[in-house]
């Protein structure tokens, strides 16, 4: 156990190092330079460009820039090129905005997909099974932004509630109940949209796991000795079918930072994905690299946690 943890931590640090190198190279080998972003601006004199280059170490060779960037990142001194704010603070603010979306979306995903998947597996071939299969494919296949427009039109036309942004502008002196309802309405659509893909994929996976377990010998034995179907389904089958999903708790971690660029753009939601999108547009390299780095760290931590959980839950696995 200890040796497994040690080995995988070392392996993940090496992976992280290569990820940092690759992302740095991708950004810096692209044509163009951030100092040339705004050549038409009369205030952007050659002296300004020179000062800019010096201030952000752009005159150093590539490996020097790399070392300086990650030194700054680990000491928390990285600043955005656009507005000179600390990148970590910027990310943290946006992260707090994205967090409600993520939490509600994850809750929706995990609470909806299990009942749907289990029911579809128990009544295999029924109308419900076929219907849920088709709906799942439908949700996987629909372009997110098109679906978003459909939902927005539906909700705005029929329920007369505002949905764009995090809250309605100019609600300063209304009652608390009104405020809270307003926030919930604004939260609802983006989180449903963020959850659709997850619900579709996860419910299909639950269904196939239940079917897989349902074909095992011990299920046949349990049925043969006359246990009631509910007991077999929920006590014998479900418990074993749940095994792989325990490990998926680790894998939802990367979703924390990615956010959805498209959904946050449509709803003008000031979250992480939108910040990353704006950073790409402005060629704000420190923000892009930091977001990339943090998300790589989260992916690695997520896989690590899921490996550990697998070992804890499944006694057959000894890594």
């Amino acid at each position: 156990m200890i040796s497994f943890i040690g080995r995988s931590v070392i392996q993940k640090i090496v992976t992280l190092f290569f990820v940092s190198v690759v992302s740095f190279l991708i950004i810096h080998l692209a044509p163009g330079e951030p100092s040339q972003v705004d050549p038409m601006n009369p205030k952007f004199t050659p002296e300004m460009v020179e000062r800019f280059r010096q201030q952000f170490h752009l005159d150093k060779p590539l490996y020097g820039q790399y070392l300086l960037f990650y030194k700054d990142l680990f000491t928390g001194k990285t600043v955005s090129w656009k507005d000179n704010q600390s990148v970590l603070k910027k990310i943290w603010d946006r992260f707090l905005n994205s967090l409600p979306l993520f939490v509600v979306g994850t809750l929706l995903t995990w609470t909806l997909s299990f009942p749907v998947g289990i029911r579809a597996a128990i009544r295999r071939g029924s109308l419900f099974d076929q219907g849920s299969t088709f709906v799942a494919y439908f949700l996987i296949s629909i372009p997110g932004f098109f679906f978003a427009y459909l939902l927005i039109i539906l909700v705005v036309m029929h329920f007369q509630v505002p949905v764009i942004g995090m809250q309605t502008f100019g609600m300063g002196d209304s009652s608390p109940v009104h405020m809270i309802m307003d926030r919930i309405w604004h939260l609802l659509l983006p989180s449903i949209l963020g959850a659709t893909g997850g619900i579709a994929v996860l419910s299909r996976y639950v269904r196939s796991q239940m079917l897989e377990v349902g074909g095992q010998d011990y299920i046949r034995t349990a049925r043969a000795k006359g246990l009631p179907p509910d007991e077999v389904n929920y006590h014998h089958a479900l418990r074993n079918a749940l095994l792989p999903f325990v490990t998926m708790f680790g894998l939802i971690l990367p979703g924390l930072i990615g956010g959805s660029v498209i959904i946050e753009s449509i709803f003008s939601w000031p979250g992480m994905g939108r910040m990353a999108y704006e950073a790409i547009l402005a060629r704000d390299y420190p923000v892009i690299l930091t977001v990339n780095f943090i998300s790589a760290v989260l992916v690695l931590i997520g896989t690590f946690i899921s490996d550990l959980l697998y070992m804890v839950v499944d006694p057959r696995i000894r890594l």
Partner: protein
Amino acid sequence: MQTRHQVQPAPENSLERPLAPRRSLWQQFWTIFKQNRMAVIGMVFFLLFFAAAVVGLLLTSGNKPVLNPSLIRLQEKLRPPLSKPNLESLQPDEVPAFGVYLLGTDELGRDVFARMLQGAWVSLTVGFVAVGISVVIGIFLGGIAGYFGQNHVRLDHVIVAGMLLAGAVLLAIKPIWGSVLFCLGGILTLWLFFGRSRTGQGHQSVPGMGLLNFKTLTIDTLIMRLVDIMLCFPTFFLILTVVALLPASIYNIMIVIGLTSWMGTTRFVRAEFLALREQDFVAAVRALGVGNLRIIFRHMMPNAVAPVLVSATLGIASAILTEAGLSFLGFGVPPPNATWGNILSDGQNFIFDAPWLTFIPGITILVVVLAFNLFGEGLRDALNPRLRER
């Protein structure tokens, strides 16, 4: 082999003839596949999409296309579907084919039907080229990892590869003399290390050179760590970054989508190869003295190709969706080319005045992607050997 047996005259003894009607693999596949109604419907739409894309390319390209997707008629903007053109205000060559705007016109008076047809070809090529790139990389790396994975990368390999790589990198940046130096050095060491001792035991003959046989990593570890590294990147964000930094072009989008989606295929192919290379038929072929390449491509690949085919079908669907998402954010295929993604994202500004500009491309993308997904899942079931004999 199979056919040669059948050409021989049938033996007298009827017992030696096959007793059951022999069904080819395709017939077996088809009997299972056609039971899945949704998959068959998916396949029909899949073929229709192909036909539409090819017809669209023929009708909308050339000097005098039948349907001109970029002809601007400002006096005819935002006409609803199936509306007749106003013949008095149009030049004779501006009148749309069939004398009707089948799917309406957009905010510049361009014929949406022509633009959708042009977009079909663009979506098709984006999907197929991107998936083609990812499948080629995936099969290559996965095959190497699965078949040669147990071999070690020796120190001399590292030196040669390092020299050649440094030469290539220097060539890409600037200094010509440095790159030539490194390339020459690489070729020289390549010849020194491997040219002379093809049959020998490596570098044992020269004292001190034994160090060069030092084993570093297995090839399998190397490739699988590369996969891990690629999986760490948030895919859509990475694609967005690269596409935004590079000059806008349809080829960049295809290449970038392809280069960021090969990891799944690599894992599939590696797993299949690891299982296959322990099978008896591979051992038998190897005992016959067949070369590695022939074993891989003639004997193992046909057995490993089914999951690749399935994941390629699903991959085309997701590449089309990714392209639409990029177009929506303004980083898609640049303007003269119409794609479904940018028709949709242009149309969203007129969603109440001209809903067809949003709904026609949206529903088309939905139907095509759905067809690809259903077809892919049907393929997965039909190619699954566990279901074949039932």
